[in-house]
């Protein structure tokens, strides 16, 4: 009797399934298109904000604030990225194959979160830096260059916010399972309901979009909600953990 040696046993089950999820995400044309679209929108808006900044209508000439201002809009790209990462499993029944290969549902779900983070963080860094470079070029001599420490915190905070938003969106989409309703709901929340509540209610400071404001818009930290950047980050992380947990439980309990 011969024993068959396992041929591809490198790494733990979790590492291998995470690696597979990264490959799956990268193979979706929508991932690349969304990333490219976000970068393009970020650059175009950076031109608009910097032009407005040159005319003095933004009230600040800080290249950092102006270069990060497009994040308010480019987060849409990361919302879509997160949603597509989750719902692509449900068009055409791919989820059945995925669960045949990785039957442990919570493990599969966490692998997906890891894969999304691994893709969203570099994408976010490119998008954030792209906006900053364009803003700096348009501002030219008028640019007030921030100290390196502020720059690093600004870029890091913005990229972290975008990646966390992608994970939150993918959790929501895991529960909803359909692309259009998930995208519609999240966009309406992030772009319409959220900003309107921000101006009108006190509890909005604890919601994931307003709490995250301080992570990327530093001069606005006091103006939008009462939380400091650090506490705000804590609230966003808490929302994301909660969302991932709810999505994992729902993914484990429901029929695929």
């Amino acid at each position: 009797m011969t024993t068959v040696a396992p041929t591809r046993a490198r790494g733990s089950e979790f590492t291998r399934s995470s690696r597979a999820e990264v490959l799956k995400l990268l193979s979706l044309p929508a991932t690349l298109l969304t990333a490219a679209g976000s970068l393009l929108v970020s650059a175009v808006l950076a031109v608009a904000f910097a032009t407005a900044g040159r005319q003095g209508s933004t009230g600040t000439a800080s290249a950092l604030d102006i270069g990060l201002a497009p994040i308010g809009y480019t987060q849409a790209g990361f919302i879509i990225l997160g949603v597509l990462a989750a719902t692509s499993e449900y068009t055409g029944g791919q989820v059945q194959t995925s669960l045949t290969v990785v039957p442990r549902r919570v493990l599969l779900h966490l692998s997906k979160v890891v894969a999304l983070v691994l893709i969203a963080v570099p994408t976010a860094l490119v998008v954030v830096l792209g906006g900053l470079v364009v803003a700096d070029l348009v501002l030219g001599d008028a640019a007030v260059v921030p100290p390196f420490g502020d720059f690093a915190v600004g870029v890091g905070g913005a990229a972290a916010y975008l990646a966390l938003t992608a994970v939150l969106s993918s959790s929501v989409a895991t529960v909803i399972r359909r692309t259009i309703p998930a995208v519609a709901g999240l966009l309406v929340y992030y772009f319409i309901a959220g900003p309107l509540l921000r101006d009108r209610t006190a509890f909005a400071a604890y919601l994931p979009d307003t709490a995250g404001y301080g992570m990327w818009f530093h001069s606005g930290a006091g103006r939008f909600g009462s939380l400091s950047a650090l506490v705000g980050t804590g609230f966003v992380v808490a929302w994301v953990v909660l969302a991932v947990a709810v999505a994992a439980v729902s993914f484990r309990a429901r029929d695929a």
Partner: protein
Amino acid sequence: MSAYSGELRKLTSLPSVWAAFAIGIAVPAVVGVLSAVSTSSAIANGSKPEAGPDLGYQELAFGVAGAIVLGVVAASSEYFTEGESAGSGRQITTSLTAVPSRTRFLLAKVAALTTAVVLMSAIATGITLSCVQAVVGDHAHALDGAAATRVPGVVLYWVLTALLAFGITLLTRNGVVPLAVLVLNTSVVTVTFLLSKVTPLAVYFPDLAGMRMFLTEVRVPVELSPLTGGVVMAVWVVLLLACGFTAFTRRDA
């Protein structure tokens, strides 16, 4: 007529359409009440003499997101690929088997979409304005004489926006891109409003022009009259629908 009632039935059977109604009616009403409460407390403590003329209408400009979702879904649901268990089909093939004339099919769809949006915007306007009126009381502008032209303005704005979304989705066949572009552009500071800082021509974008039909305070470089605004928006919609119609009648389904 049977194509029209068929399209109406299709719309009412989509969960996304009910979500769109919920968004379109709840967002302006809830936000309108919140604005009205803060306005009336500002009037009470004397920091504001009276409610602004756009109170209630401003919130209705955001509720148009419901109309956007409706317009997008009316087109994109036809192209959604069903799962393997349902034969990986798309509804459009069945629809065109039932109504082979593509022009008739599109006209029926536009008519059904318009009916749904008129209904949604009328309900949203009624609820939002009466809630604002109830909270602010005597200080409200909401239902004064000008409302006779402004309320139809809101309905027309919602209908034209839904048709715009429908036309764009006919071209893209996928709902995500038009949804992202149009919802982003309905946010508190819209992209077109930012562009109006760069070029005054931006006031001729369909949303900024169309808002003129019911908003009096829009801080943009060029002032358009409500009529001009409505006409500019209608021209955009006609052009985009014409592109969508041409693409739809010429392309393979």
